[in-house]
């Protein structure tokens, strides 16, 4: 848990800067989790090696997620004159040429550029429709240096709030901005703060919910890794507003790098007097602690999360009382999500009107989305509310991978639903997305093409929620299990007449008889896929076929005799020797023996094997 990767240890240590002349180039390597996974540390090591030989006056630093995850490893070059060049898909063996041509000779390697301040490039459209508030520093500053954050206006919002505004004025500003909870439910943040401020108590808490459990979502991880001080500043302002003096970061156990950077950020803020007693010379005192989650999706629910901080099983309880009245250890507590807090410093500095000028009538500001799945440019994007789903997918995301057809987008993770391509003109705001049957959610957007089976996707999410149900409510515990069993038999070709109706009945019952959001929303993936893709369910049940050719048990592999030349390649890769035939004569697949592994299709050069 301590180190981001063991490879980090082998890196050359950054030397203390000994006041040299300003460097000719400042190079920034993207080292968020994505960058590291794509080989960021190896690229940086190779870069340092090449630089050693070149003897140039260059400064190298790290940054968090840049957003263009599809082009990781990314590397920025800042020139003294303000020009900035971004390289994508960097590998260790590209470093020598990069150092030689760009740094030594001053000629950027045009083929590898993905973004540059002095020329237009195809990937510019990735940024054209984005509006970066939460991500304003991500991929720009070094998240391990508080000075970098401060040089970008960091902690000025806290100073403004503490010295020039009363707690009520801070709350009013947030209320007027129209900011709503970015964890997914969309409750007005200012109202939540008002409730917590209005609660009586000798002790109050602020909790930051960083238990990003939706599979397919990585916004909070990227923000915590890329700009930890921004989130902390938002929490401090909230603490001042409601009258709390202690805060907890609750971070998922799977995010070791985020935890490491938060620990560092807390240390640095303490040294500067932004945490502790009498912050910035005022009466405001605040302590910050980190609690690492232990792997339970239900802990994203606020009452379960608090139980987990208290050291108990993370099981939700009935509300009211709401946390604002009785939360952590029975004290008034305000819980917001990472992205919500990350908006706050910007709102305080730029004013509620600037924030409210973006978005739609009921959904203000911007929203961060994690674009993933079958999309050409997957990554982290921040767009103004009110943009359409089509704009995000086709313009920002560059369309579907490999030129295939856009089928649906899954929003809101296991609590959300699948929005079909036909509803691509839906605008992104809490209410419009809600009308489709999906939810805005925390920001996961998993894009699906025509090879994705919608029944299988519903089964996938039910498998997840069924495992993650804490077991407290019977309908959630047993109902999700029954739904999963039905979905499993449908995808295995054993679906029965009436299964769809049974699914819908169970779904309704689970929704109304579960205590927390997990159970109340668990049926959504099934409900939306039945609503928009009912014919796929029917094909599985009645015709025993999977239109997307995805459900293994329903596939049938056949050799087209006219196309088969009898090269025997397929027979040689078949693990169960189900393919027989003489050399130079058409082969045959024994349907009984075939295990549908797909090896033969991948091997055949003559397109002679058909999958039905």
């Amino acid at each position, binding site marked *: 848990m301590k180190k981001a*990767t063991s490879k980090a240890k082998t890196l050359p240590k950054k030397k203390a800067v000994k006041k040299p002349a300003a460097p000719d180039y400042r190079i920034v390597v993207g080292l968020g989790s994505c960058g590291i996974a794509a080989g960021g540390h190896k690229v940086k090591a190779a870069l340092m090696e090449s630089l050693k030989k070149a003897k140039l006056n260059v400064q190298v630093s790290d940054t968090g997620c840049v957003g263009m995850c599809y082009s990781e490893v990314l590397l920025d070059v800042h020139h003294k004159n303000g020009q900035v060049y971004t390289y994508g898909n960097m590998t260790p063996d590209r470093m020598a040429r990069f150092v030689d041509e760009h740094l030594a000779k001053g000629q950027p390697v045009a083929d590898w550029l993905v973004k540059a301040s002095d020329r237009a490039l195809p990937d510019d459209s990735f940024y054209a429709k984005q509006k970066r508030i939460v991500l304003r520093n991500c991929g720009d500053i070094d998240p391990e240096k508080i000075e970098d954050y401060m040089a970008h206006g960091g902690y000025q919002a806290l100073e403004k709030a503490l010295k020039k505004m009363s707690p009520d004025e801070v709350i009013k500003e947030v209320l007027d901005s129209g900011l709503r909870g970015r964890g997914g439910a969309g409750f007005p943040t200012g109202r939540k703060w008002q409730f917590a401020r209005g609660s009586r108590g000798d002790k109050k808490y602020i909790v930051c919910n960083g238990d990003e459990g939706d599979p397919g979502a990585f916004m909070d991880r990227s923000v915590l890794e890329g700009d930890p001080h921004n989130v902390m500043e938002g929490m401090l302002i909230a603490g001042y507003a409601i009258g709390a003096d202690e805060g907890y970061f609750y971070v998922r156990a799977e995010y070791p790098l985020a935890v490491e950077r938060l620990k560092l950020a807390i240390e640095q803020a303490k040294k500067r007097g932004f945490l502790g007693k009498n912050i910035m010379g005022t009466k405001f005192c605040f302590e910050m602690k980190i*609690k690492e989650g*232990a792997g339970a999706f239900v802990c994203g629910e606020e009452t379960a999360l608090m139980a987990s901080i208290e050291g108990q099983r993370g099981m939700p309880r009935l509300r009211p009382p709401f946390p604002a009245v009785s939360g952590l250890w029975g004290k008034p507590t305000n819980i917001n999500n990472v992205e919500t807090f990350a908006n706050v410093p910007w709102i305080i500095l730029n004013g509620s009107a600037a924030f409210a000028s973006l978005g739609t009538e009921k959904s203000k500001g911007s929203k961060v989305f994690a674009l993933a799945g079958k999309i050409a440019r997957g990554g*982290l994007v921040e767009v103004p509310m009110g943009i359409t789903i089509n704009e995000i997918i086709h313009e920002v995301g560059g369309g579907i991978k490999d030129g295939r057809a856009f089928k649906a987008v899954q929003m809101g993770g296991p609590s959300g639903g699948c929005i079909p391509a036909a509803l691509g003109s839906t605008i992104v705001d809490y209410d419009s997305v809600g009308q489709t049957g999906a939810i805005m959610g925390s920001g996961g957007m998993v894009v699906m093409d025509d090879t994705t089976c919608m029944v299988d996707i519903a089964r996938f999410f039910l498998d997840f929620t069924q495992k993650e149900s804490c077991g407290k409510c019977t309908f959630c515990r047993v109902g999700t299990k029954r739904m999963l069993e039905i979905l499993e038999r449908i995808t295995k070709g054993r679906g029965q007449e009436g299964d769809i109706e049974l699914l819908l009945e169970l779904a309704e019952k689970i929704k109304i008889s579960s205590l927390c959001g997990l159970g109340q929303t668990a049926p959504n993936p099934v409900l939306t896929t039945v609503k928009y893709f009912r014919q796929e369910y029917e094909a599985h049940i009645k015709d025993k076929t999977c239109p997307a050719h995805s459900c293994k048990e329903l596939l049938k592999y056949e050799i087209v005799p006219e196309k088969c030349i009898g090269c025997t390649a397929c027979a040689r890769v078949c693990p169960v020797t189900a393919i027989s035939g003489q050399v130079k004569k058409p082969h045959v697949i024994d349907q009984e023996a075939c295990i549908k592994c797909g090896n033969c299709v991948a091997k055949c050069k003559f397109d002679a094997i058909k999958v039905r």
Partner: protein
Amino acid sequence: MKKTPGKKANPDLGKINRVLAKYKGNKGALIPVLQEVQVALGFLSQDSLRAISEGLAIPLSQIYGVATFYTQFRLKPIGKHLVRVCHGTACHVGGAEKISAAIEAGLSVRDGETTADGKFTVESVACLGCCSLAPVMMVDNDTFGRLTPESAIKAVKEY
């Protein structure tokens, strides 16, 4: 069901006591204590849970309840390296099942099991949060993205 008294100088006990001392008097210490003991000892043995129960004055039943609620805690030892194959939405859509199948076949284990030589434990996890590099896996704390069945098993075998 072994009894602890009578055993002399259990080296594990020293490590547990160090963790307990660090959290003495802290509110909500149970989960961090379990986490740190697991990091120090690899898993949570019955003896460890007993020692923690005594140290924190929390009933063993309650500790067992917490330890079995959260997926992070293990009550059985694991292999030298932990291979976590991501089965989040993006990885699922991107073919995570084939990655798991390749690793399980390559190491001759099933999901959740440890290899006979004790070198690897393989498990599927919900989401590692590197969705744009799907399919993804982690070996210990190293993340590998854009996997194919071949590259996945190759990366594992390099450990």
